[in-house]
């Protein structure tokens, strides 16, 4: 790995020697990976290499299912908590780290309630405060213009691309410090995809982003750093330009040129 340009970048999180086990099966082997604030970090790699598994470690989604186990650490800055530490409450971690899933998964409630839900469970019930945050989040997700007249309509009755932006707004409403995207555009058409990409580029102005993608062009377009994973390990990590123009590991080159995966 090459040294980073440390002058502009601030660490948001960093995995060190992270192992992860689904029951007996080890899915991640010694992942060490920095995530910089106000940057987009892309995770690429062939199917089954552990991208989703790693992403879900970052907000402790694995704790929802029995038998899963973390080893090693992921430090969240600035307060240097080990977010996979057993003494840390996963709910506190999820309150700080948002996630957008592969398939749009809005709640079957109104558009408004979808965005407001994160605040409601943080005991915000003041109507004007909720209104303000809902509007802000929908604007940040570039959805406000399309839905502002039907905030009370069901979230299931908007298009797939709009649903995915709604899910982004829902995650943004609680102002997360780190936002995780797991192949957010794999279920969307090209137009909707490019809107999400624009959005990601916008959002990195104020939040650290990790995005999993199978689309090399997408990784190249939106990310600042790229990690190439293979069989549960990070094979190569570097600035995105470097990874795509001048990778040091042969496997990386073969993957991004489409020779396997």
């Amino acid at each position, binding site marked *: 790995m090459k040294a980073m340009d440390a002058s502009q970048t601030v660490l948001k999180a960093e995995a060190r020697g992270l192992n992860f086990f689904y029951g007996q099966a080890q899915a991640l082997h010694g992942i060490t990976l920095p995530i910089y604030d106000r940057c987009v970090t892309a995770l690429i790699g062939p199917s089954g290499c552990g991208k989703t598994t790693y992403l879900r470690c970052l907000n402790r*989604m694995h704790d*929802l299912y029995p038998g899963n186990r973390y080893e090693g650490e992921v430090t969240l800055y600035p307060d240097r908590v080990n977010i996979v530490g057993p003494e840390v409450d996963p709910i506190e971690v999820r309150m700080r780290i948002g996630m957008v899933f592969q398939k749009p*998964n809005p*709640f*079957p409630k109104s558009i408004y309630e979808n965005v407001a839900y994160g605040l409601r469970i*943080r005991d915000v019930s003041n109507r004007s405060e909720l209104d303000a945050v809902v509007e802000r989040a929908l604007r940040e997700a570039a959805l406000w213009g399309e839905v502002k007249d039907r905030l009370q309509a069901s979230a299931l009755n908007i298009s797939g691309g709009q649903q995915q932006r709604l899910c982004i707004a829902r995650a943004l409403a*609680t102002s997360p410090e780190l936002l995780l995207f797991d192949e957010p555009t794999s279920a969307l058409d090209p137009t909707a995809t490019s809107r999400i990409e624009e959005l990601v580029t916008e959002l990195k102005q104020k939040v650290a982003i990790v995005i999993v993608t199978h689309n090399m062009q997408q990784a190249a377009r939106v990310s600042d750093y790229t990690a190439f994973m293979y069989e549960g390990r990070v094979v190569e990590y570097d600035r995105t330009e470097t990874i795509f123009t001048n990778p040091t590991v042969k496997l990386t080159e073969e993957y991004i040129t489409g020779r396997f995966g």
Partner: protein
Amino acid sequence: MTPIQQKIARRKALDRFFAFEGLMVMTAALLVLLVLVGQLMFDGLSRLSWQFLTSFPSRFPAQAGIVSAWVGTILVMLVTAMAAIPLGVGAAIYLEEYAPKNWATELIEINIANLAGVPSIVYGLMALGLLVYQFRLGQSFLTAGLTLGMLILPMVIIATREAILAVPPYVREAAYALGATKWQTVRDHVVPYSMGGMLTGMILALSRAVGETAPLITVGALSFIAFLPHPPWQDNFPYVSFQWLFDPFTVMPIQMFNWVSRPQEEFHVNAAAAGLILLAMTVVMNAVAIVIRARFRKRIHW
């Protein structure tokens, strides 16, 4: 025709005959339903009247009525619902959302499946020994309601679990990812989204309880009750009254059973009329369940 064509023709004829037979059997089953309802109407329709609905039982068939029976059914169902619904929904939520995968959970699950197969009269025996004599609740509305509540508990649990299972895991994950706790996820998402299935299951279970007779005979239903229980309200604070819970009870099917087991034909007419009302109650409940299921299905489609 060549021999092979003949063979095919024969097999086709056999196939058609088999299909015809299936159709006939099915029609026969449905015909039984029609005949049953028809017979009941033929015997009892003429007896249905305001007087019948508002009179107490009597030695004289023409003066007898079902007011204590239908009031009793409603009150018993109230107790049954109050007992079985919270417990059943709670148990189902625990098993689907909280329970760890271990032997204790497995034991609970096997137990519920087996309870669903226990004959209803056995529940009556248990209630007689435990509720009536051990807990000294007497042969009361409370005992009757709790007996039926225990009887339908497995049904409510099974239906509720099925309803909860229909909520896709990704919706839960969406809530958890926002930082929701388990209870918040259950309260705000799992329960509301499975409400249609839950309500359907509850109503079907209650409609089963409405027709149950044997366990209530066992705990000591009376079939000759010439007074109404204490009203569930009172004039002064706190305005609700629970005294009725300890009154002796009767219900519709008990009343019908009493009339049908008498030798005089005039009482059989009363039995048929009571049967019509009872049937109407269960049919309405089933219809409501179907409508609710359809409604919620339209509202939430995953």
